[in-house]
Structure formats: structure tokens, C-alpha cells
């Protein structure tokens, strides 16, 4: 068992990093009732670079030496055991050297040696983003300094509409976080020889790249536990304007890929299993079973299909997944369902490509390259928990990579790139834990946390300890969290216990962190809270000729109706008949307000059906469409044709109105979940759901007898040809008297010899 020791709550440090997480980009999807929905709002201040530096300053210096061995991003070397690392007073100096050194090493394309001196720092930044405008270059330095100098006051929140999701963050900080942060700042300043140089350097670093890692552990209503890892790497480089030469934390493979192919946004998810929305609630980030890839290309890309093909092939190599099977037969261009999540000027959907490979099996060989993209690999930080043998021994496993452009700062004059790597696992602790719902990190991952990734600005573990049914808390978390914070996530009030791995006090008493959760008394699992929106899908019908796909969409909201965008992609070998499409809600026909249908073409294009459907309050909407199964050529079948063919999940995108009024409650920046899909205003939140993939059997020919079939059919044709040829070329004649065959003549010759009369 891991070392588990109870520790004093350490709220003081916990507050400040929580501030840092407000630095979230906000591409904001918005569903307009007209149908062409989710509009990104580019002008949104995506990334308020609030002062993570402050916090980091305190932590960085505590273990400067440990950073030294890790330079190469892809192959992190062994990590010295945590603990009594040199906590020298000249930590800042060491850290500075380190920064310079790592930058030098990281700059693989050799843009000249970077001087480690403080004076060159600015110019290094310039080189990092050579093409960016002068404003972008000059901006960050100047206005920041007052804040840095006085590390207490909140950031000026830029005036904007719908300020509720991130706006309140700074306000809250004034009241709670400020004293502690100031204290840390003072402490840091005093601990250092150069108090003034520290913040400047820290700022510079933050401008360059930033890594934040988070782990969210949430017990699910039915006893399972979901663990969601999220690693965010920010890269302040302007990919699209040409020569990008500087890779530090951002993986070079992906960066160069995005630059070379003109990728504006890339979302790749590899998933094993199915997220049971009904039983598990709304996921932080759901993905369909198999592999999902959707990409927005830059408007400068001329041949999108070619770039898409190339991209999927390269990604297939990077992630060891069969993404190279993405071709025109499973690629679609949705018009409404997928909108850019990052900054975007236009949403010309011709630049979008979307493909799902529902058959893809995700396993260790996909996890390893994914882990290699992390700056710390799996050697330090939260990633030590990512042990393949445990991760794949779970009910649901989903790993994703999202790349998108975000605002570099509040004024949004320059673009940064964000790589967000997420991994969600659902452990069935109930069955593996002898019927108990208690769990611990060690039980789930057979590892415990020992330290934060040294490159990370933020490293936190969140445990969802929301009280159910407004009762007293039924569960107990050990060790005591560094802080507790509340947030409204997806229309639900949640309470999180927060462990800040960067706070030194967490590891004071024990060397490792093993979060444990115990239920105080057996929970009555009689009623599961059903999510507001969930869906299920099935194939009905009998025989191999025709069938019907039915999708049931539930809106359990007591009084609000809301629209849902449904996207169906059906392979060409199921011939959909769109005239059989029926949408029935509460016994009445429900006319979709927007419908886009692109019929399939044999062996070239799948069916694409997008609809905007209004869901009345507390209703079930049934959507059925009939199809016919095609007989394929025998070479087009998979090696196991009688297993069936997968139909990828349909995608539901909706702005779900929240049951709890969110307007009045300050939405403190919460961990992961102000994530890719922020809500547009306080009263609703964005949800993207995937239904079950379907398995459809097709009629199969007999694979063993191509030769027989060719022979037999050709024989029939030959019979026809022969008989007609016979009749066409010959004419009737009276049979001539037969002089007998050879045998008869031979016999007659012999008979003549013998003197016998011939036959």
C-alpha cells in the first residue's frame, strides 16, 4: 500500500493556483435557433494571462535542480527522487540558467544559441514568434509589469457580455486569494536574491509556453469512478506565419504537422468503450467509440481533401492508430454541428472535415505515443498514474488531443496555440472492490502521486465531493485537501476537494499523495439523477434486407425546451431512405427547423444527415429512418464479415438550459470544465453527446467460391452464345445418308478381307 498520511489542510497555497486556471480560452459556441448554430466569438478574450507566475515563483525555486536533467521533451530522463532537492537561495539564478538552457536545447531547428542572460530574454521572445506583429511583441511586456510588481490586485477584467463564466473569477480573487498570494509573493521575493528579476523571468516563461496539468476524480452515481486527466500546453508562437523554429513544451511533431498542413484546429479522440450518459451523467468531454478526428483547416489551404488525407496518414503514424483508413467513404463535412472551438474568423464549413472510425480498437500502442507528447512524459507529475495495464482494465477509456488557436492575452492581438491532451477513464471500483464503493488512487492506478511535473505551471488533483440530494456529506476524503471549491458544472452544483501538487506542504509529511475516498454509510443508489439530455440509438428490423435506425432523445428538463443538433453519418452500404424519416415527439410529428441531407454515393461518400430539432420539456423524441442493406463486393468485406459493420455514433450538440440558475452564482473558475465548450451565458451550457455506435449485419456472398461463380455464370453466357451461334450460322439440311463412322468402315474393310458381306 502506498504511504497515506493525513495532513493538515493547507488552504493558503491552494487559493492562488486556482486563480491561474482562469486563463482559459473561450471559443464560445452558441446555438442560434435558426439552425446554423454555434458561432465562435473570436473577440472573446481567450486567455487572460493572469499571474500563474506568482504561484510558480514560490514553487519553482523550491526544486530547481530537478529540472536540470530534463531537457529533451520527448525523452525525459529519470527523475531524481523527490524530497530534499537543493533548496538553495540562489534558486532563481539556477532556474534562469535552466530556462536558458532548456530553451537552447529545445530550439531544435537551431535558431541560434539563446543567451541565458536576462537581457536577451526579450529578444528570445521575439525570435520565438518572428512573424507576429509588432503590437503582439510589444504588448505583453509593458502592461504586465504593474501587476507583477504588486502581486495582489486582480486583473482588470475586460468589459464584455456574458461575463458570468469567467468574469467573476477575478472578482473572487480579490476577496480570498489576494492575501495569500501576496504573502507568497513576498516570501518568494525575500527568498531570492533578485526579487525584481524573478517576476520578469517568470513572465517571460509564461509568455513562451505553459503547461498545466489537472486530474479530476469524480465518483459516478452508480459507483464507478471517472478519472479525467487534462494536460494543457500553451505555445506562444504564430504557426501560420511561416518559420516556426522554437519548440519547448509543445510537441514538435504536432506543431510541424499543424504548420505544414495549415491546420487551424485539430481534435482527435481515441476511445474504447461507451460513456453511459444516462447512468454516469454528463461527461466532461465525451468521445464516440473508436477514433474520431475533426479538423478545421486554414482558409489558405487550397486542396482541403488532400491536406486531410495527408494529415490523417501522418496522425496515423504518430498515434499508431488506423487513421489511415479515413478516406472519402467515411469523411463528411458537417455544416452546423462542429464549429471551431478556438479563435476563428470565419466558419466556412468547407474547411472542416470530420471522420469517425467506430471499429478502431484503442490500446497501449495508442497510449504510449500520446504520453510521449507530454512534456514530462510519464515520468513525473500526474502522468505517472497513466499505467497502461490499469487504464485499459476499465469500462471506458478515452484519450484525446485538441489543438486550437487561442488568444494570447486579453486584448487578443496575437495568437497562441493550445494543445490539450485529455484522458478519461472509468473504473469499475464497485465490482473490483468487493462491493464497496471506496477507492483510492493506488487502487485504481496502482500508483500514487509523488510530485508535480516540474515544467508545469499548475498541477492539481480535484475530487468531486458534491453532496448528493442536499444531505450531509456521505463521503470522506483523505488526506485532507489543500482547499475546497465549489463550481457549477453543466448545470449542477459541484464541490471539489483540491490538492495542489505544487504546494510543498502537500508532500511535507508523506512522500506521495494517495487520495482516498470512503463512503461513510452505504449509499442508497435507488435513484440516479438523470441528465437533462441523453440519447440512445438502436437498429431495428429483421432479416438482412431492410432495417430501421431509431434514435431516442430525452429531454428531462422540467420546464424548458431547447433545440438539439443531430448529426448522423451512415456509411454508403446502408441505403438510407430519407422519405422514411420521421421525428415524433409526444405522439406528434416534430418538424426539424433545419435539415441538411447529403446522400451517399456508392464507394465514395457516406450519408450525412444534420437536423435541428426542438425538444419540448420533459419529452422523448424518436427519430427513425429506414435503410436497405447493400451487397458488397467480396473484397470490400472486412475479414470478419459476419461480425457486422459499424455505424458511427450520431452526434448531438445542444445548449442545455441549466436547472440551477447560474446567473447569480459566481462561476469561479473550475478545473477542467470551463474547457472546450464554455457556456454562452449563465442559463445554459453546451453539451455534445455521442450515441452508441451501431452494429449492422450485411448480407454476405460466399467468400470461398469466386472461381465457381465465375465459371458457372460464364457457362450460362456461353450456353446462350452457343445456341444462338448455332442457329444463326447454320441452316437446315436434310440429313445425308450416313456412310457410317470410322469403326464401321474399319469393320467393313476387315469383313471384305474375310470375305464376309459388309455391314
Amino acid at each position: 500500500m502506498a504511504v497515506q498520511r493525513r495532513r493538515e489542510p493547507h488552504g493558503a497555497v491552494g487559493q492562488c493556483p486556482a486563480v491561474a486556471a482562469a486563463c482559459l480560452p473561450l471559443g464560445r459556441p452558441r446555438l442560434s435557433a435558426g439552425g446554423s448554430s454555434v458561432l465562435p466569438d473570436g473577440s472573446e478574450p481567450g486567455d487572460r494571462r493572469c499571474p500563474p507566475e506568482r504561484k510558480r515563483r514560490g514553487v519553482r525555486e523550491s526544486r530547481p535542480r530537478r529540472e536540470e536533467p530534463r531537457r529533451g521533451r520527448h525523452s525525459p530522463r529519470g527523475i531524481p527522487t523527490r524530497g530534499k532537492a537543493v533548496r538553495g537561495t540562489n534558486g532563481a539564478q539556477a532556474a534562469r540558467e535552466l530556462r536558458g538552457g532548456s530553451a537552447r536545447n529545445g530550439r531544435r531547428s537551431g535558431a541560434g544559441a539563446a543567451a541565458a542572460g536576462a537581457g536577451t530574454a526579450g529578444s528570445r521572445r521575439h525570435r520565438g514568434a518572428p512573424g507576429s506583429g509588432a503590437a503582439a511583441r510589444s504588448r505583453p511586456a509593458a502592461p504586465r509589469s504593474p501587476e507583477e510588481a504588486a502581486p495582489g490586485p486582480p486583473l482588470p477584467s475586460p468589459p464584455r457580455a456574458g461575463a458570468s463564466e469567467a468574469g467573476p473569477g477575478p472578482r473572487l480573487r480579490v476577496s480570498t486569494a489576494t492575501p495569500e498570494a501576496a504573502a507568497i509573493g513576498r516570501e518568494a521575493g525575500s527568498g531570492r536574491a533578485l526579487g525584481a528579476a524573478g517576476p520578469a523571468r517568470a513572465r517571460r516563461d509564461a509568455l513562451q509556453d505553459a503547461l498545466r496539468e489537472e486530474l479530476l476524480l469524480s465518483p459516478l452515481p452508480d459507483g464507478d469512478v471517472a478519472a479525467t486527466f487534462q494536460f494543457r500546453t500553451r505555445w506562444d508562437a504564430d504557426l501560420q506565419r511561416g518559420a516556426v523554429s522554437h519548440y519547448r513544451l509543445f510537441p514538435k511533431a504536432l506543431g510541424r504537422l499543424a504548420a505544414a498542413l495549415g491546420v487551424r484546429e485539430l481534435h482527435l479522440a481515441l476511445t474504447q468503450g461507451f460513456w453511459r450518459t444516462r447512468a454516469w451523467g454528463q461527461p466532461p468531454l465525451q468521445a464516440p467509440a473508436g477514433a474520431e478526428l475533426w479538423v478545421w483547416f486554414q482558409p489558405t489551404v487550397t486542396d482541403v481533401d488532400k491536406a486531410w488525407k495527408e494529415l490523417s496518414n501522418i496522425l496515423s503514424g504518430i498515434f499508431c492508430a488506423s487513421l489511415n483508413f479515413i478516406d472519402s467513404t467515411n469523411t463528411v463535412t458537417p455544416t452546423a454541428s462542429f464549429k471551431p472551438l478556438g479563435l476563428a474568423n470565419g466558419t466556412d464549413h468547407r474547411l472542416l472535415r470530420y471522420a469517425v472510425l467506430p471499429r478502431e480498437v484503442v490500446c497501449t500502442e495508442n497510449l504510449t505515443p500520446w504520453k510521449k507528447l507530454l512534456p514530462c512524459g510519464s515520468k513525473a507529475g500526474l502522468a505517472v498514474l497513466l499505467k497502461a495495464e490499469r487504464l485499459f482494465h476499465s469500462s471506458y477509456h478515452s484519450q484525446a488531443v485538441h489543438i486550437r488557436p487561442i488568444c494570447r492575452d486579453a486584448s487578443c492581438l496575437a495568437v497562441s496555440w493550445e494543445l490539450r491532451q485529455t484522458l478519461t477513464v472509468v473504473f469499475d471500483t464497485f465490482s473490483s472492490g468487493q462491493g464497496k464503493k471506496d477507492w483510492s488512487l493506488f487502487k485504481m492506478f496502482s500508483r500514487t502521486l509523488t510530485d508535480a511535473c516540474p515544467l508545469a505551471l499548475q498541477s492539481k488533483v480535484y475530487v468531486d465531493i458534491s453532496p448528493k440530494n442536499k444531505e450531509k456529506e456521505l463521503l470522506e476524503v483523505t488526506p485532507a485537501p489543500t482547499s475546497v471549491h465549489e463550481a457549477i458544472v453543466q448545470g449542477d452544483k459541484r464541490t471539489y476537494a483540491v490538492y495542489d501538487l505544487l504546494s510543498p506542504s502537500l508532500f511535507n509529511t508523506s512522500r506521495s499523495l494517495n487520495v482516498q475516498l470512503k463512503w461513510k454509510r452505504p449509499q442508497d443508489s435507488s435513484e440516479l439523477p438523470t441528465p437533462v439530455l441523453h440519447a440512445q440509438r438502436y437498429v431495428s428490423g429483421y432479416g438482412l434486407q431492410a432495417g430501421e435506425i431509431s434514435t431516442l432523445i430525452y429531454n428531462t428538463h422540467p420546464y424548458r425546451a431547447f433545440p438539439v443538433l443531430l448529426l448522423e453519418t451512415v456509411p454508403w452500404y446502408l441505403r438510407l431512405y430519407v422519405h422514411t424519416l420521421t421525428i415524433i415527439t409526444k405522439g406528434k410529428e416534430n418538424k426539424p427547423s433545419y435539415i441538411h441531407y447529403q446522400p451517399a454515393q456508392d464507394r465514395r461518400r457516406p450519408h450525412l444527415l444534420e437536423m435541428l430539432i426542438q425538444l419540448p420539456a420533459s419529452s422523448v423524441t424518436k427519430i427513425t429512418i429506414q435503410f436497405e442493406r447493400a451487397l458488397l463486393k467480396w473484397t470490400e468485406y472486412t475479414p470478419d464479415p459476419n461480425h457486422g459493420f459499424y455505424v458511427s455514433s450520431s452526434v448531438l450538440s445542444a445548449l442545455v438550459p441549466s436547472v440551477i440558475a447560474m446567473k447569480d452564482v459566481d462561476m469561479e473558475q473550475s478545473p477542467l470544465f470551463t474547457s472546450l465548450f464554455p457556456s454562452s451565458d449563465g442559463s445554459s451550457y453546451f453539451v455534445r453527446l455521442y450515441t452508441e455506435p451501431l452494429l449492422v449485419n450485411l448480407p454476405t456472398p460466399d467468400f470461398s467460391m469466386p472461381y465457381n461463380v465465375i465459371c458457372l455464370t460464364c457457362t450460362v453466357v456461353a450456353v446462350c452464345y452457343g445456341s444462338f451461334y448455332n442457329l444463326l450460322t447454320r441452316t437446315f439440311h436434310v440429313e445425308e445418308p450416313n456412310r457410317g463412322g470410322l469403326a464401321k468402315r474399319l469393320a467393313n474393310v476387315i469383313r471384305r478381307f474375310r470375305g464376309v458381306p459388309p455391314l
Partner: protein
Amino acid sequence: VVEGLALLDLGVSPYSGAVFHETPLIIYLFHFLTEYAELVFMITDVLTAVALYLAIQDFNKVVFKKQKLLIELDKYAPDVAELIQTPMEMHYIPLKVALFYLLNPYTVLSCVAKSTCAINNTVIAFFILATIKGSAFLSAVFLALATYQSLYPLTLFAPALLYLLQRQFIPIKPKSKSFWLYTMQYAALYLCSLLVIICLSFFLLNSWDFIPSVYGFILSVPDLTPNIGLFWYFFAEMFEHFSLFFVCVFQINVFFYTVPLAIKLKEHPVFFMFIQIAIISIFKSYPTVGDVALYMAFLPVWSHLYRFLRNIFILSCVLIVCSLLFPVLWHLWIYAGSANSNFYYAITLTFNVGQILLVSDYFYAFLRREYYLTHGLHLTRPDGTEAMLVLK
């Protein structure tokens, strides 16, 4: 068709997908008639039957006249009285043809299934009627329509031309000027009407999408859904790199019998027409039972050939048994899962062999009767014994 209409209503070009392969005129026809689809199909069937009735009635008159002429000219052998068709026999033939078409289970099936094949049949029936009535213009128009519908009736150009030439008493000789003149006239009529129809459909849809979607679909056989033809399983099992070659080989079957048949049967264009329709229905890429029904309707016309058919009993048994086994084996394969595709394939194969042998049997009988008519029924050898007739 309904799907095509639904797509049209959605504002999507019906030809952008792979589900709809009918011609634009059909889709616009049904745009107005879709409410009464059952009625429309019944009416088309009745129209087909009426057209066939009138056509055969006229044809009988022509045959009778020709027979009379030949008898008067003493072209027939003396002892063929029993081979000559009497007006008594011929009186009921048109009625039989119409009933054969209407009461054929195949026709009923395709009507119930609302197959657009019924419309093709009607067009072809009107084409036959126009040809036999001697109206070159209407014949060309209907032939163009039929070609536009399913491409294969192109081959009916030859018998129609032969018949019309015969009616005009123009000798069929490559050297004669009037022969070429008339041929050019007819071909020009045909091509013009085809052009007009295609342009009309272009203006209806404002795109040429329908050309690859309709004719490309017919010619390249991308849809391998099981039917009663030879194509589907063959191309499902075909090796990829041979498939183009075999598509060509199979498609050519419809067309390449036309010229030799035209030479052999230049005196009998209606029989030629019958053989050609049968060949189309056997070798077309997506045959349906409606096609089979059309040529089977002609069988009563050739009832006088009955005594020369060699194995009509076996063949009719084969066809009937196959027709009964189609649904059974289909059910076993698709629904019950207790048989595999080979069962159904075997029955299509047998059915097609049956059809081929039936047609060639009729062809044989026809040729043999012609021979007897000119050479006498009782052939004797030089030595006076009964002679056998052989093909040489």
C-alpha cells in the same frame, strides 16, 4: 422514385446520391402522380396490354396477307397446309397476348411492387404498336423514350427499321439508294427525339448529373443488390482487376446478337423484336420480373411454333419451379439465415438458363418451320425414306 421525390422536396439533387437512378422525366411525372401511384401502375399495365392487343391484331393481318400472297405466288411447298395459320386460330391471339400480359404473375408482382419497369414496358409496347401501324415518327419517338428510360431498347432500332422498310416495300439491299435514305430518315428521327428528351430533362434539372447517375449506373453495375439477373453475384465475386473486362463482356451480350439476328431474320422483324426483347431481359444489368413478363406476353403469337418446340415441357417446368423457389430461397438466405447466397444464386442461374433455352428453342422452331414451309413438311431422302432435318 419516392426517395427521389423526397430528395427533390429537400432541395437536394436526386442524382447526388446513389439511391435514385430513374430518369428526370419519370421523377417529374410522379411529382404529379405520386398520390395515385397504385392507380398509375395499374393504368400503365392496362395500357401496355391494350397496345399489345392492337399491335398483334394488326400484325396478324399483315401475316395473313403475306401468307396469302405467298400461297398465291406458290412459294410454299405443296404439303404445308397444316402449317399455315388459319384466321380461326389467329382470331384469339391478340386477346391471348393481352391476357398473357395482364394475368402473368410477373406483371402482377411488378405492379404490386410499383416497379417503374411497368412504365418501360408501356413505352416499349407503344413503340411496337407504332411500328406495326407503320408510323415511323411515333415509332422513333417511343423508341427514343424507351432508350432514354433504360438504354437497352437501343437494339430494337434494327427490327423496327426492318419492319418499316418491309412495310414501305423497300428492298433491304445495301446497294439500293432508297434503303439508305429511309434508314437515315429513321435514324435522324430517332436521334432527334432522343436529343430532345435528354435536353428536356436537362432543363428540368439544370444539370447533367442524371447522365452518369442513370446510364453510368446501368452500364457499370455498381449496385450488387440481388435480383433475378446474372450480374449481381458475378460482380460481387469478381476479382477487382478483371471487373472492367467482365463488365464489358457482359454488357456486350445485349448488343452483339443484334446484327446477326438482323441478317438472319430480316424477313421477320417482329420475331426478331421478340428475340431481342428476350435477350435484353436476360442480359440487362438489373432485370426485373416485369421485363420477363413483357416478352412472355409474345409467346401466344408464336403458338403455331408449338409443334416444333423441342423441350417446352421441361423448360416451362424449370421456369415455374424457379419462380416458386425465388422467394423461398430469398427468405432462407436473408431472413431465416439458414441458407447462404449460393442458394439464391443457383436459382437465378437456373432461371436464366431456362430463359435462354426457351428463347433459343423458339428461335429453332421458327427457323425449322420456315424451312418446312419452303421445302415441304414431308421430306424424303433420295432413296425415299423419311429424312431427318439437321443443322449444318
